């Protein structure tokens, strides 16, 4: 039981670390870092699902019968790309916000906005 699932539990912990950084931290770049960690942990989670004991990488070759499940790999390849795309856009936004507000700290930005209106 414990051995059967420990792997997933570690992943969950990782995810939550990332998730925590996203929602708890005020620095915009740090939020995005958290997001990356969060997503990467999800990737690990998927990949763990794909593993088969005694299986090998899903590349057909002579004399290998047992392969790991290729489908999650494919999904995660896509997901990674989506991840980097999001990161890039988020960082671009952070840069622009820095230029517009002179800060990338949530509180200061909120303060400045409240002054506006």
């Amino acid at each position, binding site marked *: 039981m414990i051995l059967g699932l420990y792997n997933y539990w570690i992943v969950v912990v990782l995810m939550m670390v990332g998730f925590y950084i996203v929602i*708890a931290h005020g*620095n915009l770049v740090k939020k995005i870092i958290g997001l990356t960690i969060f997503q990467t942990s999800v990737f690990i989670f998927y990949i763990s699902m794909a593993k088969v004991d005694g299986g090998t990488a899903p590349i057909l070759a002579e004399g290998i019968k047992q392969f790991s499940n290729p489908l999650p790999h494919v999904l995660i*390849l896509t997901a990674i790309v989506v991840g980097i795309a999001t990161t890039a856009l988020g960082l671009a936004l952070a840069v622009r916000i820095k230029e517009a507000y002179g800060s990338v700290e949530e509180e200061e930005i909120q303060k400045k906005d409240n002054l506006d209106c």
Partner: protein
Amino acid sequence: MKDLLAVIMLLGIYGLLSASFFVVMDAVDVAFTEASVGAGISTLLMLVTISMTGRSEHPVRHKPLLALAVVIFTGGLLIYGTLDMPYFGLAEAPIHQHVAPRYINDSMQEIGVPNIVTSVLASYRAFDTFGEVVVIFTAGIGVLALLSVARRRDDATKIESLNMSMHEKHLILRIVTKILIPFILLFALYVQFHGDYGPGGGFQAGVIFAAAIFLYTMLFGMSTARRVINQSLTQLLAAIGVLLYGSVGVVSLLNGKNFLDYSVLATDPVAGQHLGILLIELGVGITVASIMIIIFFNFAARIEDQQNKEN
């Protein structure tokens, strides 16, 4: 940890670690990608970003108890959810029973590509991959829309001088790089076209290719790099990559088959599949490379722009 630089470095290491973990988990392609993206691109982008937004984070004032509660709850739910999951590595788990077997058993006959991941990625679920390319394209356009700066001719000289100083500094690096870059590019091409036999494929290739350009840019400065890489040309290439992918699908449409059904591309369906995969992987490669370059260039151009504003 308030120093973002350190955080980002750790993040890079985390990426690298997870990549190696993927290798252990037999997910070589994913590992390859994660290594190039998680440890490479995203770290690089973040470094560029903090060079503009500042590398130190303010201490969090408000007590993040709510956040903690949310996180603990979510985590608890997930743990709870895992309880009924089939054990790790269990061959009898439904995911190994239902859909995947066909990929493993029949992909050779149906597509004729040893790397199952590639055949699934590029044929069975080719539309997802098309979507993936579009996502990257979207991100590229988004960054352009956000960051692109109208370049002013007059300050070209200023940058020149800036680069000069740079050149003096990193003499060794420059030479080493000059030697390295061709090999990197070559490797990129290898990854590109070898994707269906071993790990790799359009995406990884594109990233590696872009990486070479980054290296060059970082050492020889933007303006030098601009002489090599024409902005509008890269944008064009990005579009062309997507279009190449799409048009492969359209061709199969015109031949009366469904979208992205490669079997019509050649007389022998399997050969058609093979050809189709090559083409779309090429499309992926082109788009990814050019988008990565676009993103990086626009970030870098922003820095340059700010420096000019300062002096």
